[in-house]
């Protein structure tokens, strides 16, 4: 493997205080073609993040120095880079809190390396062939190639995951997506996974794109089924 090959797959920042696990992660990631750097303390994570400029962050929730949740929020303030949480507890509120503070996905310890790599690949995969597609959903216009969403000329700042979620709904406005289908298309899960992922991210997306997140018009809930793009055009548009 050459250095050019390593950088081509992407850069991963591993924030975990367990030295053995971090090293093991580095080995596995290198085998899969990712370049990685380890940060063992929460309070040093932001510096490492700014310096390394990773394409994805693997973030343990229990960290010395600073809580993983806080690190997650700080990264989100600066960037939409995908964050995958590493957690030992799948059933606690930690997961939901982590997702709500901006994490895109989570992996429960002990995970299989292939599972982790699949999660990472799903998050760093960027559109292979940018198409010059222009879509509208509600009063929002989506520029697929430019990876941007605008409302009346004003740019709406979305993370790549939120963008993918919105795009997925906007491409087929006639279709109702179940949470399972969304998990597969946006997150890349092949088996049924935790549907809380979808719920939390739909909430986050709504808080950014809806006029009134309590009465969503762009991402509409279909009771008992899932979500779909809102059909009603706002007056004046």
């Amino acid at each position, binding site marked *: 493997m050459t250095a050019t090959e390593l950088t081509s797959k992407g850069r991963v920042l591993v924030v975990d205080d*367990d030295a*053995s*696990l971090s090293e*093991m*992660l580095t*080995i*596995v990631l290198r*085998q899969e073609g990712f370049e990685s750097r380890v940060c063992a303390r929460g309070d040093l994570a932001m510096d490492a993040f700014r310096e390394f400029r990773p394409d994805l962050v693997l973030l343990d929730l229990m960290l010395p120095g600073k809580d993983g949740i806080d690190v997650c929020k700080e990264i989100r303030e600066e960037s939409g880079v995908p964050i995958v949480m590493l957690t*030992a*507890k799948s*059933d606690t509120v930690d997961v939901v809190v982590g997702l709500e503070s901006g994490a895109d996905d989570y992996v429960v*310890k*002990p*995970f*299989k*390396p*292939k599972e982790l790599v699949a999660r990472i690949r799903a998050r760093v995969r960027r559109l292979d062939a940018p198409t010059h597609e222009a879509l509208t959903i509600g009063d929002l216009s989506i520029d697929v190639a430019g990876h941007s969403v605008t409302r009346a000329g004003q740019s709406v700042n979305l993370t790549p995951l939120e963008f993918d979620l919105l795009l997925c709904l906007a491409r087929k406005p006639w279709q109702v997506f179940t949470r399972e289908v969304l998990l597969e298309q946006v997150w890349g899960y092949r088996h049924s996974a935790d549907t809380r992922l979808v719920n939390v991210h739909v909430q986050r997306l709504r808080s950014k794109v809806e006029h009134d997140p309590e009465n969503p018009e762009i991402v509409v809930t279909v009771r008992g089924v899932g979500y779909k793009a809102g059909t009603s055009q706002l007056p004046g548009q």
Partner: protein
Amino acid sequence: MAERSPRGALRRGLTFWRRSIQARVVASTVLLSAVVIAAVGWLLLQQTQEGLLDNRVDAVLAEAANETAEANRGLTRVPGTDVDVGTQLNDLVDPIKLRGAARGFEVVLAGPAGSGNPLSAGGTRSSPGLDVSSVPQSLQERFAGPAGPGWTFTRIRVVQPDGDVREGPGIAVGSQIVLKADGEIYTLYYLFPLDEDAETLSLVTRALLTAAGVLLVLVAGLTWLVTRQVVTPIRLARRVAERLAAGELQERLRVTGEDDLARLATSFNQMASSLQKQIRQLEELSRVQRRFVSDVSHELRTPLTTVRMAGDVLHDARRGFDPATARAAELLQTELDRFETLLADLLEISRFDAGAAQLESDDVNLVDVAHRVVDMTRVLADQRGVAVLVRAPEHGCLAEADVRRVERIVRNLVTNAIDHAESRDVVIQVEGDESAAAIAVRDYGVGLAAGESAMVFNRFWRADPARARTSGGTGLGLSIALEDTHLHGGWLQAWGRPGEGAQFRLTLPRRAGGVLRQSPIPLVPEDSQELV
């Protein structure tokens, strides 16, 4: 409802009677007092009546003797030459009649004695309006021949001038006189009414009844008050005991005074305190224990992740190893899988023990679940040469449940059945009625010995410790299944007989929170029932 309400009232009354000591004590005291009061009252009345009558009889006899003596004196004054019997009789009776009218007695003159004529035959002289049958037959018979004076009780009937008949108790006194005119013996009957005495008696009776009534009310009131003093603290204690039983361990009785009840309350409170202390201790102990299991499981996860990843790296690279090392890498991989499942099961159990498990209920089609489980376990079933069949109604069978947990229960049951099926079929049966849905997993393998059907749900329990564990089950599967079932408010039961196989039946309420009364599938499978 109209015809049921009296029965309902009766039932409520009976319930009150059964539950209330106060009611029973008051009622029995009142009943006993009533019996005593009635006896005493009756005795008093008897005595009064006797005394009154004795007095009256004495007075009446004296008056009758007086009248007879007066009549005899009248007769002696009459000259013997006057032989007109009728006149003489009239002269005899008329003054007595007059006196009788004044003093309130009636008189009848019958005779002559020995004629054999009854009074009713006529020919008697009597007070106006008097019905001569008022003189009792027994008295008439006594005076059929010559006899001394005699008396008896009777009823006097008098026809009033306006035609009314007045009837009342009385005393009939008879005495005989000899008429000079014909030398015959005539009988004089005096009839004295007892109306006044009857009135006195009824007055006394009324007074006694009133007194008895007042006394009973008094007794009832007293008993009620006394029992209330005892019962009220008991009821309070009961309420506090109920609250203690419901888990409000800080509940205590209020202690006032130093009497027996206060001491009872003190002892009760001491008991509650010591119970509370012990329960707290046990709770703390079990909390620490659970916390420990949970912490250990979590602490194991990070190193296990590293080992897991290292194992995977080795496993992926095993082609480059020599055969022994390659095999070691493979074994490492499979055992890591097992270790992981065991850890996951331990965590799940510790979650149940901590009471942290929560239901995410939804409408679940148990038939779909059965088919999904068959798909999931196909690899294992094929390895063992076991065919898993599903017998289910076509319309499906819905129940409000947590699909993840129900699937896990059924998967545990099916893998367990495949493990013990000894290459025979495994049948999953799904059935439902309006209140319950059930899924039964039947195998025809080794079966369960008597008493084992309850033990299969114990943690790490194995029917035969010598028997090899082949499927890599953790020994916690059925315990987790049972906990999952309890979380749904359902039943998970096992039946088995050595050599005939076993059946595990899961019954869930159709609606979350529903109460199960029966299962749509019998626990003992039909193909085995004829052998019972």
